[in-house]
């Protein structure tokens, strides 16, 4: 079953993301201290810790849609701040976009990520260059779609998305913030990397780790996993 993602792989993705967030909690908070209020790492880690706890205690997760909905709801209910609704909506919209399938194919995954991006825009009204998580997520979704359209494998497409997300994250450093707390700084926001975009890059890194080149869903090993 090449180029498809089981619920179990999706779970591994979420758990890998949680681990990356935990490992980078201080870093994310430090980024937020420079242009925000020094809580982004704490916020994301509180949320992803709750997500993992919910996954641990859930009997079994029926479908990708159910999984994403649970993740999204948990984030909305535990994170707060800007990232709670934004990352929450990101997952909730992925869930809705998945539809009633048990396994997500490459096209379905791409549609889910596109819906996630649209959800973030619906919530936060961010545009290109506003210096937000949008600036990492939008190029990643574009890259994913382009790679699949060009006939690439899901694994290669996710790698391309990750690379584009990292570039997008890096590009936020030079931007003048126009959304979120960093916008209060005006010119002084220039020269600092956006924390939310950094979290998005971690989400993509986790995806690239769990969707390896040989897309055998059970042999893949997520980056950062023991």
């Amino acid at each position, binding site marked *: 079953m090449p180029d498809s993602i089981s619920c179990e792989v999706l779970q591994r993705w979420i758990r890998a993301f949680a681990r990356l967030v935990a490992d980078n909690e201080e870093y994310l908070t430090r980024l937020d201290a420079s242009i925000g*209020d020094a*809580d982004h790492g704490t916020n994301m880690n509180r949320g992803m810790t709750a997500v993992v706890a919910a996954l641990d205690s859930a009997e079994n997760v029926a479908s990708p849609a159910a999984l994403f909905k649970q993740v999204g709801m948990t984030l909305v*209910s535990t994170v*707060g701040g800007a990232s*709670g*609704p934004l990352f929450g909506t990101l997952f909730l919209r992925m869930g809705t976009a998945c539809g009633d399938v048990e396994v997500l194919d490459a096209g379905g995954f791409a549609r889910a990520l596109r819906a996630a991006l649209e959800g973030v825009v619906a919530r936060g009204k961010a545009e290109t260059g506003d210096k937000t998580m949008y600036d990492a997520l939008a190029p990643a979704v574009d890259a994913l779609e382009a790679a699949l359209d060009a006939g690439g494998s899901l694994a290669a497409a996710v790698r391309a998305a990750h690379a584009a997300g990292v570039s997008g994250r890096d590009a936020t450093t030079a931007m003048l913030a126009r959304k979120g707390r960093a916008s209060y700084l005006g010119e002084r926001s220039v020269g600092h990397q956006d924390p939310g975009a950094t979290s998005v890059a971690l989400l993509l890194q986790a995806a690239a780790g769990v969707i390896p080149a040989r897309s055998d869903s059970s042999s893949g090993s997520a980056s950062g996993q023991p």
Partner: protein
Amino acid sequence: MKKFVNDPNDVVAEALLGIAAAHPELRVDHANKIIYRGDAPRPGKVGIISGGGSGHEPMHGGFVGPGMLDAACAGEMFTSPVPDQMLEATKHVDSGAGVLHVVKNYTGDVMNFDMAAELAASETGVNVRSVITNDDVAVEDSTWTAGRRGVGVTVLLEKIAGAAAEQGRSLAEVADIADSVNANGRSMGVALTSCTVPAAGKPTFDLGEDEMELGVGIHGEPGRRRVPLAPAKEIAALLVEPIVADLPFARGDRVLAFVNGLGGTPLIELYLMYNEVARIVIGHGIEIGRSLVGSYITSLDMAGTSVTLLKVTDELLALWDAPVRTAALRWGV
């Protein structure tokens, strides 16, 4: 980090335990981190709830009580509460007359309150109106940005809207009064030191011994400009002049003048600042009808102050003077 805390992650929960223990007239829902007026819901009365990140005490929990808020939702440190909290509070304080949400204009607060209002609309029949405070003149106002922050006016608005609700006015009336308070108030703040978020363990920003941060918000976000430390007289001018110019406040206007401490600044300095602020305001031909001096909307342990001017009518003044009985503001009862 020199603070009275145990585990830095438990600060909010443990402070709520202390609030509950010290104020038996309140009811605290610890699971949902909501502080309720003990007798909420009040039959026929519009409910007013607010909430926001913790670290701004006494705001908002200290403003819960007769004549002010029905409930306050406490978020994590400097992090807006989650929609579940506002939804729960909304349901609990509604007596059928509807509920006003008082929201400070921060991306997180606005989005979480929005989600709560959407949920309230779809899950319950509660009539919700929201008022957003955005009085901080340090931030450029533009539809292209997150807009101005809600700061000192929030305190005054919660008192005045609370009085209107207590008088039995309708949700539409209470919301309109709240909107007019926000429209007529302006604030600006300055920090002499950074605050330290307990979980971060170190100051959010560094300031030289001879510097201050002008135009700060209440979350340790750096301000608009770092300027040399100055005498109180000059600092007062740096705060008051942009406020007066912005509304603008004009000769003959009557105002409520509010000098607020940001948490680490003692009262003696606030009174000294009030003297300078009042002098400048009166120098503009503006009459000071009422005043408030103290630390009411804080930023953890930040040394600093903010000034708020609210242009008042006889009606607003009467609502300000109306009885209030909360942990932090109390008079007339």
